[in-house]
């Protein structure tokens, strides 16, 4: 199969969604943002994690599957509609184990910027701000970050920490400043590869080789000297079953697969 044929079989956005979905474990309680996180969680519900609970930042708790276009509302009914304050209390009290978020920039230590690129008062670009991002990464036991990779987005240090990762990488710092123990970013999934954290620093775990991505490409789009995992692998491509469910059931209009790899962050209505 040529590179081109591979690319037509599935896109990088689809790989991101599928890789994210696979992070969800059977009984996870998942704090999902709008867009890619929602699609990934829904895909997990249709595949290996039917019992996971999805909690949206505007305050919806449900175990049911739901159509994407009703994801932020409750035309498909919820188990509980307690509102934004309540679901964040659930998170703050430690009852939401898995978080999901998108990013404008990420740095070596997993700090995330969704506020402003460049100077805060004279930004080169303004994103919409934290939304639930700061809450997710502050409170959830582990947080899965999805982001389109580029040198301008993968920085030694983000311009603005909207959502704290491991700060300057010194161990124990999150706890010292008052963040709950055993929290923080755990996995970063880009359009090029998958990263974990080693002592608070990003570590390349797998490359989307099946999509033709090379180590050179990965490194070219990171502005620091990235650590490589000793057991670096190829990212496991989507199965036919995953692609089928994603395309036909979860996101038939392919809105979110496209959005996953686009430079903008997902929008909220």
């Amino acid at each position, binding site marked *: 199969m040529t590179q081109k044929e591979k690319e037509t079989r599935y896109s990088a956005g689809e790989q991101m969604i599928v890789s994210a979905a696979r992070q969800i474990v059977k009984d996870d309680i998942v704090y999902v943002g709008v867009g890619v996180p929602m699609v990934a969680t829904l895909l997990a519900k249709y595949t290996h994690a039917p019992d996971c609970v999805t909690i949206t930042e505007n*305050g919806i708790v449900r175990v049911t599957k739901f159509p994407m276009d009703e994801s932020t509302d409750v035309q498909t009914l919820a188990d509980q509609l307690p*509102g*934004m*304050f309540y679901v964040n209390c659930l998170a703050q009290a430690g009852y939401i184990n898995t978080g999901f978020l998108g990013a404008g920039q990420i740095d070596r230590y997993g700090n995330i910027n969704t506020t402003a690129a460049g100077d805060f008062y004279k930004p080169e670009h*303004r994103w919409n*701000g934290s939304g639930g991002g*700061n809450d997710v990464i*502050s409170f959830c036991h582990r947080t899965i970050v999805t982001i389109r990779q580029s040198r301008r987005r993968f920085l030694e240090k983000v311009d603005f920490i909207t*959502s704290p990762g491991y700060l300057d990488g010194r161990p124990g710092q999150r706890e010292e400043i008052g963040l709950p123990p055993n929290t923080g970013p755990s996995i970063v999934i880009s359009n090029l590869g998958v990263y974990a954290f080693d002592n608070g620093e990003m570590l390349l775990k797998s490359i989307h080789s099946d999509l033709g991505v090379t180590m050179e490409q990965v490194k070219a789009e990171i502005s620091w000297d990235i650590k490589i995992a000793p057991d670096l692998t190829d990212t496991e491509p989507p199965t036919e079953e995953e692609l089928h469910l994603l395309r036909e059931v979860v996101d038939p209009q392919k809105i979110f697969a496209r959005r996953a790899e686009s430079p903008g962050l997902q929008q909220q209505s």
Partner: protein
Amino acid sequence: MSNKLMTLKEAVSKYVKSGDTLFVGGAQHATPQAALHEIVRQKIDHLGVVAVLAQPTLLIGEGLVDKMITGYAAQDYTASYPLGKAKAMNRFPVYEEYSHFGISLALFAGYMGIPFIPTKGHLGSDMPKYNKNIKSIDCPFTGGKVAAIKAVVPDVAVIHVQRADAEGNAQKWGSIGVDVEGINASRKVIVTAETIVSSDVIRRDPNRTIIPGFRVSAVVEQPWGAFPSRLAGFYNADRGGFMRVAIAGGNEQTYEDYLRDFVYGVKDWNEYIEKVKSIKGADYFDKARLKNPVKSEPIITGS
């Protein structure tokens, strides 16, 4: 019992003042559109606006907003006509930024009547550097660090609910965002209700009341009061999209046409609805009505 029913025009002119901090209810559900349109129509300016997932684009575009107090808001004025318009006339608001939880907490502290509330979030973020209402303090019991978020007490809240009685006891269902926190934090509350019901309906389900009548300043009967937002149990979002597009900002043409025709060009929301119907067809709103309504299992009370 005190009857607080009035028109939206009266309610807004009586209770929303230039310079007020305004809480806007609704978060991806049931935005109080009729009330927001009336505030624009009355050109009440120098507002601080507290909104969560409800973008008051018309207010900003018309230059009425000095400050946005929020956790998430479009600020890229190159990408939005009304934001660009505000910028051009030097009326682009200052943004006071929190996370979603942060703004919920600020409102919750207001609702509780305390000056601040602790949280384990916002720590390590750069938000406290630019928002002086977020600080790190020591917990007096554990000795550890904790963030403190200062209370926000809006002068006035606007919210749209499914049902209320004439005294102001309001009941809302569906996703509720920060509605409960926001209205309970606010000094004055304007409730627009899809339907006015007898107090008997309220009292047969008092657990559903989100604010008691005595805390409400004005009650307005306003069918389609949240449209083109969705209102759980009543209508879906504007399927035609023209209203949504215009309110979200659209481009210069759609935005300015909409303002001229549907904000300044009508005297109130009822006229607005009639005008939309006359242009878009008599069944425009009907198309948004629920196709598959579902009823709750009633609860029983009594003696």
